[in-house]
């Protein structure tokens, strides 16, 4: 129903090549997240799949059908834009009904489907309002409603949560995940926030300068990053990177250790460090230190007591250490 295959897809504008060459398969029903820093091409890739931009090369297949060059309307996809892109001069009901109207459905069918979508998204009380009278979260739900009602092969989300405040973001994240479990439709989600990626995805695609760095499940990317870029991008706080002599001692150009894989002792350990700032989150404490091998971040239990200027000792867990060669690839 929603299997999408990209082969040799590339995209160039007059000034620059955004996407050199991408091969990617998205299975039916998967929740795939495109993640990466600003300018990495994730939104461009989404728009190529949607048909809002023409590819410069390569093919896009949806359910075995070659849709390269087809207009967006024919691809049976639905998109939720970052700014929601609601029609300001129409009511919520008319916004949600619009795709059905374009498809030529009868009035009864439209009414029924709109009501169903509104019920799913808690919008039943707002059907007669205009977008201007709604809050950010409500507008987003209308955008999602407009997408659902088309019963598309796949949903495309373009950074839908960026315009919401932090508390609302958390709630909407859960709602979108629940929606996915309920509808079981393929969803492609673009974000720069790796927390969203980790918590929502079945499969994450990490992009950098138009190239795919790695594709895998969240835990795969977390535990087995293929290169330095992915290792640094996934995980918060960031992985610790140590170069120089210490890394050479392990036979690598750079070694990486996550904060939770550093054993902390007040008495003895491999590296000696002075505490700079201790962030108390309640459940955890993140200690930022200056050590023999550079600045490090370590994770301790919430009750751990560390003051500025204290001396502590850090020992990395050998089995959880990542080693990187001179090309920044994993060893």
């Amino acid at each position, binding site marked *: 129903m929603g299997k999408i295959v990209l082969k040799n897809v590339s995209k160039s504008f007059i000034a620059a090549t955004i996407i050199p060459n991408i091969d990617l398969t998205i299975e039916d029903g998967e929740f795939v997240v495109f993640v990466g820093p600003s300018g990495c091409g994730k939104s461009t890739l989404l728009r190529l799949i*949607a048909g*809002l931009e023409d590819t410069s090369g390569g093919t896009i297949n949806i359910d075995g059908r070659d849709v390269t060059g087809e*207009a*967006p*309307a024919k691809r049976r*996809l*639905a*998109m939720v*834009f*970052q*700014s929601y*892109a*609601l*029609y*300001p*001069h129409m009511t919520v009901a008319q916004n949600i009904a*619009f*795709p059905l109207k*374009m*498809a030529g459905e009868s009035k009864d069918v439209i009414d029924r489907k709109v009501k169903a979508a509104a019920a799913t998204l808690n919008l039943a009380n707002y059907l007669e309002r205009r977008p201007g009278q709604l809050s950010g979260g409500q507008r987003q739900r209308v955008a999602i409603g*407009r997408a659902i009602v*088309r019963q598309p092969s796949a949903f495309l989300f373009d950074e839908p949560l960026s315009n919401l405040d932090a508390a609302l973001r958390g709630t909407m994240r859960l709602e979108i995940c629940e929606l996915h479990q309920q509808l079981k439709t393929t969803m492609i989600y673009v974000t720069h926030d790796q927390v969203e990626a980790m918590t929502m995805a079945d499969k994450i695609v990490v992009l950098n300068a138009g190239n795919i760095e790695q594709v895998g499940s969240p835990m795969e990317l977390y535990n087995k990053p293929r290169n330095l870029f992915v290792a640094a991008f996934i995980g918060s706080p960031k992985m610790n990177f140590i170069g120089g002599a210490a890394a050479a001692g392990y036979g690598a150009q750079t070694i990486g250790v996550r904060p939770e894989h550093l054993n902390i002792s007040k008495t003895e350990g491999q590296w000696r460090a002075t505490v700079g700032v201790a962030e108390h989150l309640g459940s955890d404490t993140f200690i930022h230190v200056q050590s023999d091998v550079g600045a490090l971040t370590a994770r301790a239990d919430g009750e751990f007591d560390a003051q500025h200027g204290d001396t502590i000792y850090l020992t990395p867990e050998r089995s959880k250490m990542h080693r990187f060669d001179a090309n920044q690839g994993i060893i």
Partner: protein
Amino acid sequence: MARQIKGSAKAGNTLIAWVIGFVIFFPILWTILMSFHGEGDAIKSPLPMLASPWTFDSYGEVQARSNYSLHFFNSVVISLGSTVLALIIAIPAAWAMAFVPGRRTKDLLMWMLSTKMMPAVGVLIPMYLGFKALGLLDTLTGLVMLMTLANLPLVVWMLYTYFKEIPGEILEACRMDGASLRSEITHILVPLAVPGIASTLLLNVILAWNEAFWTLQLTSSKAAPLTQFIASYSSPEGLFYAKLSAASTMAIAPILILGWFSQKQLVRGLTFGAVK
């Protein structure tokens, strides 16, 4: 800054503002007041004039002696006609430039604006001779055509800025929703553009109504709009202040009212977007 404003400060501001406003508005006010009096009373000094009987006579006399309605009609035809024509030509152009911009679009827009800056006097003679040769002097047709061209750059410019404000994502969304180009234009673009088109219409009607170069040069009686008519207004009997006031009040009243609604458009249109 929502701090408490002292009542006395506000009162002071109000007083100064009203006085200055009154001084600026005075010439217009005086004209309106004078129009409601008879000729003999109109030329008296201020207080006696106000004290003398108020009447609509002067208005009646203006119409009776000079077929005022014809000139009013001409003004309406010229300003409305030229603006509507300009809109018809400009809407497709502005649409194309706003939504399918090319590399040259910006240059094209600037060139169009630059034609508005050409001093009319520079082409006065060819235009006059041309109009004469074509038999267009003192005709509504000629003047409507000319005003259409004179206003076209500004109409294109204003429409362009309004169209550009429609977020591209809304149009993309409707394409994703399955809309054809025709649906896109009728269901989404036009409803969103109507306020912009109305604003452009408003401002340009006002500017065309008040245009006082070509209307003075190229018309004399039959096609003369109010600008020309008033310019040549004087009564054969000598005293004519009250009638002039009446004629002036009638001439400027519609535009004063419309002008009030067009302030924002004025800034947008005539500063060519340089001030937001």
